[in-house]
């Protein structure tokens, strides 16, 4: 059900494979340059500035951000654009798209355009909440694992790996089936099933930063654990945290839709997943009412695609090796640069 699964595992691998590539690009200094405790926190802001600047000049990131902003604006303006209850049942059933109903109506006579725009509210809310909360849990677990190490790391890693391995959808289903239905349940269930992926990625990144000299210096100089974790280690993981957050939001939106499609969401709210659930339930496809089913799916895909674009931009900005190679061909060795 998660439509886009790989970015997090592969991001983790990229980190493992090339410890030098990911975090240090913005500022090579934190790796070796600051053994003195006083200087230790100085290089921290650099990677973030580099990241933001890199994203602002990256076309992929800008396209992604533009799509995302359009949807956020639609979600915020939904009550203004389409006042009233979008799920109100009328007698104008199964109308094709027309000037009056741009996207037609459902079998129950609801305006599909209104449903879709209103649906953005719940879908984005759930997606963003789940994304931020799972990332937060992931950060806490990852940092604690990396900083304390030993037994705590073993235990946290074990829990993380177990949750990572339990198949997500069946777990979602039994959790959602036993909990009282509602939006809170959906969010909670998605966090429970979604945090482990981010924790794994963030732990491996935090571990590699934990082993750097400037962290050792901070430990020796007697800084408090919380300060080291959040002021020394965390700022140097900015790009990975960002990538994880985006992947988690994608997961949240996709998984919510999957859950609702199975009828396990809060059926009374209007969301993209519920729209599709009703479309399936009312046999929209069998009767040829494609306009009922297309918009919500396209919206989910567009948002996920926009987030994935930003995610790839983050990867490109922080890992120069993934950047597109300029086709600069020197006269001396023409085929060499072409072959690589």
């Amino acid at each position, binding site marked *: 059900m998660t439509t886009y699964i790989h970015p997090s595992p592969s991001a983790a691998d990229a980190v493992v494979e090339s410890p030098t590539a990911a975090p240090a690009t913005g500022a090579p200094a934190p790796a070796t340059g600051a053994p003195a405790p006083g200087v230790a926190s100085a290089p921290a802001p650099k990677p973030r500035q580099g990241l933001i600047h890199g994203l602002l000049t990256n076309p992929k990131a800008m396209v992604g951000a533009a799509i995302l902003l359009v949807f956020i604006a639609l979600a915020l303006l939904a009550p203004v654009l389409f006042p009233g209850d979008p799920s109100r049942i009328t007698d104008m059933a199964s109308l094709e798209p027309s000037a009056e109903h741009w996207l037609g109506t459902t079998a129950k006579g609801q305006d599909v355009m209104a449903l879709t725009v209103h649906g953005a509210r719940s879908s984005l809310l759930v997606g963003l909440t789940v994304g931020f909360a799972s990332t937060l849990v992931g950060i806490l677990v990852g940092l604690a694992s990396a900083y304390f190490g030993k037994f705590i790391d073993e235990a946290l890693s074990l829990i993380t790996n177990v949750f990572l391995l339990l198949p997500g959808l069946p777990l979602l*289903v039994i959790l959602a089936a036993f909990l009282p239905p509602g939006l809170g349940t959906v969010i909670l269930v998605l966090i429970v099933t979604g945090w482990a992926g981010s924790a794994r990625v963030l732990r491996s990144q935090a571990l590699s930063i934990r082993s750097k000299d400037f962290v050792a210096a901070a430990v020796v100089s007697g800084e408090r654990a919380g300060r080291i974790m959040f002021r020394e280690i965390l700022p140097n993981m900015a790009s990975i945290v960002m990538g994880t957050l985006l992947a988690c939001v994608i997961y949240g939106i996709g998984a919510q839709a999957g859950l609702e499609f199975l009828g396990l969401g809060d059926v009374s709210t209007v969301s993209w997943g519920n729209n599709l659930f009703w479309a399936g339930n009312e046999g929209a496809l069998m009767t040829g009412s494609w306009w009922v089913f297309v918009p919500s799916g396209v919206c989910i895909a567009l948002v996920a695609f926009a987030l994935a674009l930003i995610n790839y931009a983050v990867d490109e900005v922080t890992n120069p090796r993934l950047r597109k190679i300029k086709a600069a061909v020197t006269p001396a060795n023409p085929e060499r640069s072409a072959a690589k």
Partner: protein
Amino acid sequence: MRFILRRLGFYLIAFWVSITLNFLLPRFMPGDPVSRMFARSAGQMQPEQIEALRKLLGVDDRPIWEQYADYLYNIVTGNMGVSITRFPTPVTEVIASQIGWTLLLGGTALVIAAVVGNLLGILAAWRRGGAIDSALPPLLVFIGSFPYFWLAMGALYLFGVILGWSPLRHAFSDGLEPAFTWEFISDAGAHLVLPALTIVLVSIGGWMLGMRNTMIATNAEDYITMAEAKGLKPGRIMFRYAARNAMLPSATAFGMSLGFVVGGALLTEVVFAYPGVGYQLLNAVQGLDYPLMQGLFLTITAAVLLANFLVDILYVRLDPRVRAS
């Protein structure tokens, strides 16, 4: 060997966690799902069957540890209660009759997606900036952005309803009996194409990009430069040296993504009314069939864990460094 034993221990713990989760959920959740369930299916059951199910789902006055021991014993001996929706068939029997179809659908899709996706990733990394590298990833990421079930619905609508190329539902035509005849196998194959294709389409992008990125990292290794310096043929360097090593993280990802693929397969089954465990899961949810839901969760979990274990054994074959070191 130690590696294998460690992993085995880990999977046992993971399975124990899922059993315990199953045990705890009905007992500590607010509300009373059990009475809802019985309210719906009243009249069908014998009193002693109701009593057994109540115990299974925690309506039970015994001390909790006693219940737990009892529950563990039941699960280990394969007793997961009886299904409500397919009363009075035991849950294990319901699952056994469905799981083959899921394995067929999920397995076919997974293998095709992994093989083709990894090959494309290898080629893309090898020819950086070439046609495969520049055109395919954005396209596949875009396709991968659609929900599994939505693509499946779209494919069903386009190829089934409009074009009529594909059967609309189920794993084989009505009136056919499952048998090892050419007629049945070709019919089942025709029913398999579209559902499998949608899963492949959505998951292939992840494989390709994962492999591409590890290949790019691997290509920067000294041993690749050395292989080039040795004047080996490009194909040999690409597969024997670069891809062979890049495969290691990919194998781990394979295990990890199984859970996701299973999820995707479940939803696809729902759309195509494909008679596997996913479709059964939806029926269980709609019929408030808690014993079946739990049984399906445990079975799917066990299958995923087992597959991961097999991947681990394969990994030991692939990476000499974890072998006997």
